[in-house]
């Protein structure tokens, strides 16, 4: 474990879709036990970057290493939890059956109860997913990403469509997991969420504009609000 200084090590990654460069030479590192926020508007390349971390996007240039290994590698995938933007669940199965299925894929069905309790769905475990509310589906989707107790958690806009109360709860859990030594990469375009991350990467047009703690980014831009910092840093390329 000590031989893996970084949970994520992305070096000069380029990926184009047609003429459009989704990632245009992104370099960033996420330390172990860190909550790293990827902040940027829609279409900035956040999802593409996260997908490249699990090998779903093959970079045209640059390297992607996760937990000390060049991706893609199946053994490393077993240690990553990936929560997609859309709550990717089987609507005909119950919450528990969904989590159990993903647990079985990772060979960790022992984590089903923990995962469901962590997202407060243990009491609703027998409910069929299609009958759950949007927020519950998001939590169930998170449970599926957590069931195998991954070392690295990738969350693609996990709090979209989630009410403020639940958002606070979820962030509370993310912080606890990080405290337990897990690394988390979370993408968002909501500024107040970004304030809860250890470090932030501002991404726009496939480029990393700035990186650092919230305080560092604010002072770099010379403003008090993160939102203003983001706007200011977007104008002058870092």
């Amino acid at each position, binding site marked *: 474990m000590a031989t893996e200084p970084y949970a994520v090590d992305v070096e000069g990654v380029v990926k184009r879709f047609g003429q459009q460069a989704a990632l245009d030479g992104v370099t960033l590192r996420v330390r172990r036990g860190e909550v790293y926020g990827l902040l940027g508007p829609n279409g900035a390349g956040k999802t593409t970057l996260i997908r490249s971390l699990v090998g779903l996007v093959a970079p045209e240039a640059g390297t992607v290493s996760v937990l000390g290994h060049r991706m893609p590698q199946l053994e490393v995938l077993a240690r990553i939890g*990936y929560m*997609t933007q859309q709550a990717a669940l089987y*609507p005909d199965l119950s919450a528990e059956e969904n989590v159990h299925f993903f647990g079985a894929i990772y060979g960790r069905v022992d984590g089903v109860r923990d995962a469901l309790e962590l997202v407060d769905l243990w009491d609703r475990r027998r409910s069929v997913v299609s009958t759950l509310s949007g927020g519950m589906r998001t939590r169930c989707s998170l449970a599926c990403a957590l069931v195998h107790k991954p070392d690295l958690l990738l969350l693609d806009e996990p709090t979209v469509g989630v009410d403020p109360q639940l958002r606070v709860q979820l962030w509370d859990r993310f912080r606890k997991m990080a405290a337990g030594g897990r690394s988390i990469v979370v993408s968002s375009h909501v500024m107040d969420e970004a304030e809860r991350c250890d470090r932030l990467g501002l991404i726009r047009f496939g480029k990393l504009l700035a990186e650092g703690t919230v305080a560092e980014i604010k002072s770099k831009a010379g403003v008090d609000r993160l939102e203003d910092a983001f706007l200011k840093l977007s104008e002058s390329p870092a």
Partner: protein
Amino acid sequence: MSASRVQAITRRILQQFRRDHRTLALLFGAPLVILALLGYLLRGGGEVPKMGVVNLDGGPLGSLVASTLASSKTVSASSMSQADAEARLKSGDIAGYVLLPSDFTAQVQQQRIVTPAVHLEGSQPGLSQSILQSVSQSFVALAGQAGGVQFTPRVVFLYGGPSFDTLDYFGAAFIGLVVFFLVFVITAVAFLRERGQGTLERLMASPLRRAEIVLGYMLGFTVLALVQSAEVLAFSLLVLHVHNVGNVALIFLLEALMAIAAVNLGIFLSMFARTEFQAVQFIPLVIVPQMLLAGIIFPVSTEPGPLQALSHVLPLTYAVEGLRNIMIKGADLTWPSLQLDMGVVLGFCILVILAGATTLRRRIA
């Protein structure tokens, strides 16, 4: 009721289709393709059934029947020895033959009743009908010559029998067909749902190997397909009493192979569709031409030549023929024709399994 609101919906639908070129092509292209195929099949100067004439009669009336049959447009008749006719009937080369005995002319002139033996292959009721009709027409000519002759043929069936009807003929093919098409459509739609609801993305980001996904899908749907096959088979044999002289286990084996092929064809073709809507569009493209050309309704041997070549490329043709070989002719695995049918279906299975596994990799990466 607001005209402008109705108009808004109408307009929106037309706008959507303008962007969906594939559906447009299907909407306006597929009917022409299917109708053209059907037209060619029925009016394209397809081949008429082949029959033999075994004329042992030395008198003039036997030759008269033989020459009338030879000039018939509804069958292609040729003279042959009885041994030859029997052999060619068994090999499926001819659909039947008429046997004119040595005392044929004498019989007609003395008894005014003719009972020639008509030997029919019997597995294809349509062909049997054509031959019986042509034979009786040839005796109409005879009646004109000899005056007032009663014609009662003695029909001998190689397969099937007098009670063998259209359902017996179609039943054998449909047992396989129903399973093949339903399983294909259900698998294709299920796989697209996996893609659409985002769970496939999740699976691809897990340590699952592509082969594990394809194999897991295959086994899951094969369980369903086998239960369905057993149900269809039991209903056909026990309730509908579809003619069967073959081994039920062999029928089930062939059905199971078709089901596995259908599952993998569904996985493979779902790669070329983005929505469930587009998957359903494969029905007229993949299924209807096979319905017309696999010999299910129209015997392959009576299709126009170029279509016969096409039929012989379709795996379903072999599956249908295999089922008929077993159920109607009682074929077992020692028959070369059934070995060919089974071999082609098995080969097709392996082909679509490999195709499904490779395409899954390419589309995701």
